[in-house]
């Protein structure tokens, strides 16, 4: 609800178009964070709960797009070549054995932005066109 209104049309368009249209996904942090670059392995470790320390030493707080969002499906497909059911099965193992916690789930992409900007160490994936001066791209999928 705190999403700036000028972003809303873009966000809506983004959800509708999904990534089927080919809009690339990028991994971002708040521009105030000091980290510049992450490798695909770093991003995998953070989002799969294996290792969540950023190069700055700060704990990483990964944020997921909504559970049914096409962005979420596209992200894990590109990151680890897994569909949503496999990712959910992966997390059910860790959750029910009381180990790592999954990335924080959001209800809308507006909430993703809000958490990115308010939480220290927050890291998320968005469509490239959503990136503005408040965000910094730390990882892009190779073309």
């Amino acid at each position, binding site marked *: 609800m705190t999403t700036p209104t000028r972003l809303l049309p873009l966000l809506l368009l983004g959800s509708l178009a999904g990534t089927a249209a080919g809009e690339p996904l990028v991994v971002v942090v708040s521009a105030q964070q000091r980290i510049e670059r992450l490798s695909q*392995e770093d991003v995998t*470790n953070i989002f799969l709960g*294996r*290792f*969540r*320390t950023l190069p700055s030493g700060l*704990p*990483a707080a990964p944020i997921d797009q909504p559970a049914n969002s096409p962005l979420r499906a596209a992200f894990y497909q590109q990151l*680890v*070549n*897994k*569909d*949503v*059911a*496999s990712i*959910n*099965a*992966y997390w*059910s*193992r860790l*959750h*029910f*054995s*009381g180990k790592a*916690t999954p990335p924080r789930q959001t209800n809308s992409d507006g909430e993703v932005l809000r958490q990115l900007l308010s939480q220290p160490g927050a890291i998320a994936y968005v469509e490239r066109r959503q990136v503005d001066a408040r965000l910094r791209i730390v990882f892009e999928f190779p073309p």
Partner: protein
Amino acid sequence: MTHALRLSCLLACLVVPTAATAETSTGDSFWNGLAIRGFGTLGVARSNDERAEFVRDLSQPDGLGRHWSGKLDSLLGLQANLALGDNTEAVLQGVTRYRYDGSWRPELTWAFIRHDFRPDFTVRVGRMGTEFFMQADSRNVGYANLTLRPSPDYFGPIVVSYFDGIDASLTGDTGRGLLRAKVFAGRAAEKTPFVKPFTWDLSGSRMAGGYLDYLSGPWQFRISRSLIRFKHQQPVNAAATQAGIPFDLLAAAPELSITGRHAIYDSLGVVYDEGRLQVQAQLSSIRYDSAVYEDTRAAYVVAGYRIGQFTPFVGYARTHSDPARLRTPLPAPMAEAVRGFIAATHADQATVTLGTRWDFQRDMALKAQLDMVHGNRDSRFPMRDAQPGWDGRLNVFSLALDFIF
């Protein structure tokens, strides 16, 4: 008595920090941090041979016959996670399944507090899952696993699923991959079936262990060792009397005693999980310093390949134990009886598994599986109530619906 006491201590552990944090939490309601979720399996299975009862693992007192039965694989788990601040969490889990006493009485399987001192250093205190072998602590979460049930050849002898104590895990980035070390120590709290209708009390048995994981890309490697020192005697004499052995078996062959004796579980595991392909393999050795069980080596490999919503899989498992060695010299008829008793723990079988997982709907999977057990005539341990005439072979047909919520 001590059992109930320990449990209430655990619960107190969970409640006290809860109250403390509630005072300091600001803004959002404290209960916002509460998440209740669950997992379960509705499964039916039957075998084609009544001369031996196939079980999921040796925590079950009896197993399958020729009729479809839901007891082997059906279970339901409920878990509550309560966040106590950013780095601390309390977890309670209860599971109902077909258990050692033939009932479905729910058990408190997890009750611990987890604290992340750093993102890469975690300590848990309370009751939690044992990981004698890789994935042992999630073997009841059907939805998390590819096959319908954990391989009985491999996981069958693991009758301990939780313990009361502490564990700590530390993860480091080597630059090429992650290295994770975990250690645990505590006491068992369960009972397990012995020769029917007797049970063996494992509670209070001290256990400790640890593992080293290496994770790199799609690869995970693990080496582990765990040790348990049994506290209570097995009802060997009661079972012997029932079997018509007319003398004190434990007095005649003290090496059959298990009190104060230990078992060592060693394992190596590897998982390759990339895109559509998933392969895992494990190798284990279990050694006892009591003659009542035979030392066992086991291994399994399973591979699945995802095609759309279907993941067909194929698996092979093998278990083999060293024949009993009896050092105490005994008169022939006695030695015979004792050897016969130990022979019930002999394992020498292989299982070929074929099946498929169907992810037909979000958070649900249907599985169909065929297990073909090829054992030697003297292989008895992996089954319940194997008749003298059984040839060591049987097939098991299974269907299951796994779900999480």
